[in-house]
């Protein structure tokens, strides 16, 4: 069933231009100049601000001395996904936010771009920096092939574990391949990075739904321990009348389309409303504009100051001329013949701050109005993968649906360890990497296998 009206198709060149990297690779001259700016701080605040604690001044110094291999080793030892992190980390809230240059009245060192520069060198030249450890006889399964599992698997493989990754998707990489905005990271680059993990002897079994294609019992029989890195589930429903009309999408599902299909084959309306104002909502509205949508509304119950998206992300949406409807709550999706034709909304008033300091919105009667749109995207967060988690005996979940873990990242079922979005409730790629690595250390400590460094 077609949408009522679709956005005009653009030329292939135009799509490529629209989705061009917003933070392009540095050339060697730019990298040399930027690296020379780094002060080489002692006990540098950027190191502490990075969840994976990459020794930033050390890798930057190595760039400025021309030791790119050493620089990449420094990065990838701390964070095997240093390439994608360099591209997708919200650096202004992490390493670059802590850079002392702010206090000096200068722009912070472009840590993310330098990081990518160094890692690109080993990826482009196919330099293998790490090798699998001598086999220690232990087998580990990782469920999911997102950043958390990749980091966990790489770490274990270096120590001699025999690791197999199971993922239900066709391609490995988790949200790196299916969720991150295309102008930050293309699926092909995510796959290139996964090869760093494959090089360590980690086996990937794609299109395998754990719990269906392979049972937990089989998994437990075949493996000494299991890492759960399943991320979150689908987008929450809004429970609005009309939500089942054709043309209502979940954010993750819509973004996945933009990642796995040629841009001209993505179904996209002429006018689009996106509900929510987090980082994912920004990804939706910026992708929609880049696909040629005439007008994109971002509909949010609270006001601009309450917007959860990072300032940098908000800026992107503003540059893309998105129409922001603050203090606006959707009440019904309008349709005709089963297809979306509009979104009915109401203005809200913000009450006094609650316990968490957030002001709850209340609809103002009589302020209802209708937006004419051909597509509605829900971007109100992802549900936890509750059904899947419940199927693991003994594994406990917190009230917010995140997996309960101890200091070793071990779940209620001693054989299962967990990390990433499924334990932190949905953070960033770099957090998933840090947690995947921490879980690898916990798992290793629990199994007590001798480390088989090669």
């Amino acid at each position, binding site marked *: 069933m077609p949408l009522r009206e679709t956005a005009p198709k653009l030329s292939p060149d135009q799509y490529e231009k629209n989705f061009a990297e917003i933070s392009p690779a540095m050339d060697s001259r730019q990298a*040399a*100049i930027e690296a*020379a700016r780094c*002060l*080489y*701080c*002692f*006990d*540098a*605040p950027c190191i502490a*601000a990075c969840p994976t604690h990459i020794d930033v001044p050390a890798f930057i110094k190595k760039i*400025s001395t021309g030791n790119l291999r050493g620089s990449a080793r420094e990065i990838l030892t701390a964070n095997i996904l240093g390439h994608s992190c360099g591209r997708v980390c919200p650096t*202004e*809230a992490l390493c670059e*936010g*802590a850079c*002392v*240059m*702010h*206090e*000096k009245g200068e722009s912070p060192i472009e840590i993310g771009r330098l990081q990518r520069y160094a890692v690109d060198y080993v990826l482009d030249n196919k330099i293998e920096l790490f090798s699998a450890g001598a086999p220690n006889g232990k087998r580990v399964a990782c469920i999911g092939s997102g950043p958390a599992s990749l980091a966990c698997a790489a770490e274990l493989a270096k120590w001699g574990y025999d690791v197999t990754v199971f993922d239900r998707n066709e391609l490995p990489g988790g949200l790196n391949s299916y969720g991150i905005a295309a102008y930050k990271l293309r699926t092909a680059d995510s796959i290139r990075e996964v090869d760093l993990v494959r090089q360590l002897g980690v086996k990937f079994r794609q299109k395998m739904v754990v719990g269906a294609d392979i049972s937990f019992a089989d998994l437990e029989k075949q493996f000494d321990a299991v890492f759960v890195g399943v991320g979150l589930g689908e987008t929450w429903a809004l429970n609005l009348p009309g939500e089942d009309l054709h043309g209502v999408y979940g954010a993750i599902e819509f973004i996945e389309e933009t990642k796995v299909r040629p841009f001209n084959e993505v179904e996209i309306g002429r006018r689009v409303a996106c509900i929510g104002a987090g980082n994912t909502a920004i990804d939706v509205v910026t992708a929609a504009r880049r696909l040629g949508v005439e007008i994109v509304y971002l509909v949010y119950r609270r006001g601009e100051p309450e917007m959860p998206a990072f300032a940098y992300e908000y800026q992107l949406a503003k540059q893309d001329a998105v129409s922001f409807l603050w203090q606006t709550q959707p009440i019904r999706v309008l349709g005709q013949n089963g297809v979306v034709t509009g979104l009915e909304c109401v203005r809200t008033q913000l009450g006094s701050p609650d316990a968490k300091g957030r002001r709850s919105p209340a609809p103002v009667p009589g302020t209802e109005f209708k937006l004419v749109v051909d597509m509605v995207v829900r971007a109100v967060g992802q549900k936890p993968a509750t059904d899947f988690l419940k199927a693991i005996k003994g594994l406990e979940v917190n009230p917010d649906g995140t997996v309960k873990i101890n200091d070793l990242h071990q779940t209620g079922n001693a054989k299962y360890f967990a990390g990433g979005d499924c334990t932190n409730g949905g953070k960033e790629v770099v957090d998933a990497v840090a947690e995947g690595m921490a879980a690898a250390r916990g798992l290793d400590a629990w199994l007590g296998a001798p480390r088989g460094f090669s």
Partner: protein
Amino acid sequence: MADLTVKFAGVTSPNPFWLASGPPTNTGGQVMRAFDAGWGGAVWKTIGEPIVNTSSRYGAIDLNGVKMMGLNNIELISDRSPETNFREIYEVKKRYPKNLVIASLMVESKRESWHAMVRRAEDAGSDLLELNFGCPHGMSERGMGAAVGQVPEYTEMITTWVKEVARIPVIVKLTPNVISVTHIAAAAERGGADAVSLINTINSLMGVDLATFAPRPVVGGKSSHGGYCGPAVKPIALHLLSTVAKNSRIPISGIGGIGYWNDAAEHIALGATTVQVCTAAMHYGFRIVEDMIDGLSQYMDDRGFRTIENFRGRAVPNVKDWGDLDLNYKVIAKINAELCIGCQLCYVACEDGAHQCIESYKESAKKNAGGFGVHVPRIIEDDCVGCNLCALVCPVENCITMKEVDSGDAPMSWNDRVRQSSATLTLPFPSGD
């Protein structure tokens, strides 16, 4: 407005800024453009029997993206005939009578040869002569340049030969590649020199290409030691200048690492009457003299100096032997926490590289705009020896300052101590050159 004209060895220069002998003064065309730009004088590229140069011939070191902190060359004297050079000097002087042309000469060590060359230079209309006894490479192997300038007797002898015929003032250009430059300067004075200039370039090897193991600058896979100059050599030039200025009243033309008006002003404060510039003109062209003139005038106006003589040599008496410095004078470092950006370079410098008198931050009282802590370290004032290192490494201007503190003791130098103590063995202190 400050008056920048100077009298040097009896000759008047419109300002103290001269181009040093080198590539910028190779030809009449260049020198005339330089005078148009504002240079007061030009020391011609050294004239002698024409030589053949190598290709390549210059090498440089860059520092943290700053190009040409130091420059080296294995170039010899002019590769053009004396006839051509003297004809062009004649042309230049005809058109620019007020600007000074200084003929730099280097001749085989024969009395008649020197006599002949001096006469030709004078006939061409040169205002002064500069005897190049400094070139450290190539010419010295042929018994010229540094081969003369490193031996006081030769320096004196050739200066005497030149003075036998010269009617215009004679400058002897000194090489820094000696144990004591004051001895050579004294020899030049004995030979009758009217002035000295220093420094010529410093012996150096610029580096090695690690792929081919060819030293730089590469000449068909090989290289040779050459002369070092540019910003990196200024401290060495200033030191040698100060020793000559302390030991003699002879007029001095200061050379070495001058790129800005303040470099020139420092040379003047240490006794130079004129200054010469080579590398900076090679790097940026003749127009750099504009700010040299403007900046020096501003400085002099601000300080109330009407002429160069008003402040020339003012720093010389303050250059002391170490043994005369006050050991009871004390400074300690102060960190301005407001300006501190939290890089902690001072901490690690003092901890690893000095005297362990700075404490790393404990907790960050200060936060940056993004809410990240700023790691402000703390000086342990009782332990601080006042070495300056922290202030030198601090990337923020005025964040770490050295504050005078009263040590409570009367001034006392090492030499005072030695004099006062009855049973000391007195170590003679070197007079520091």
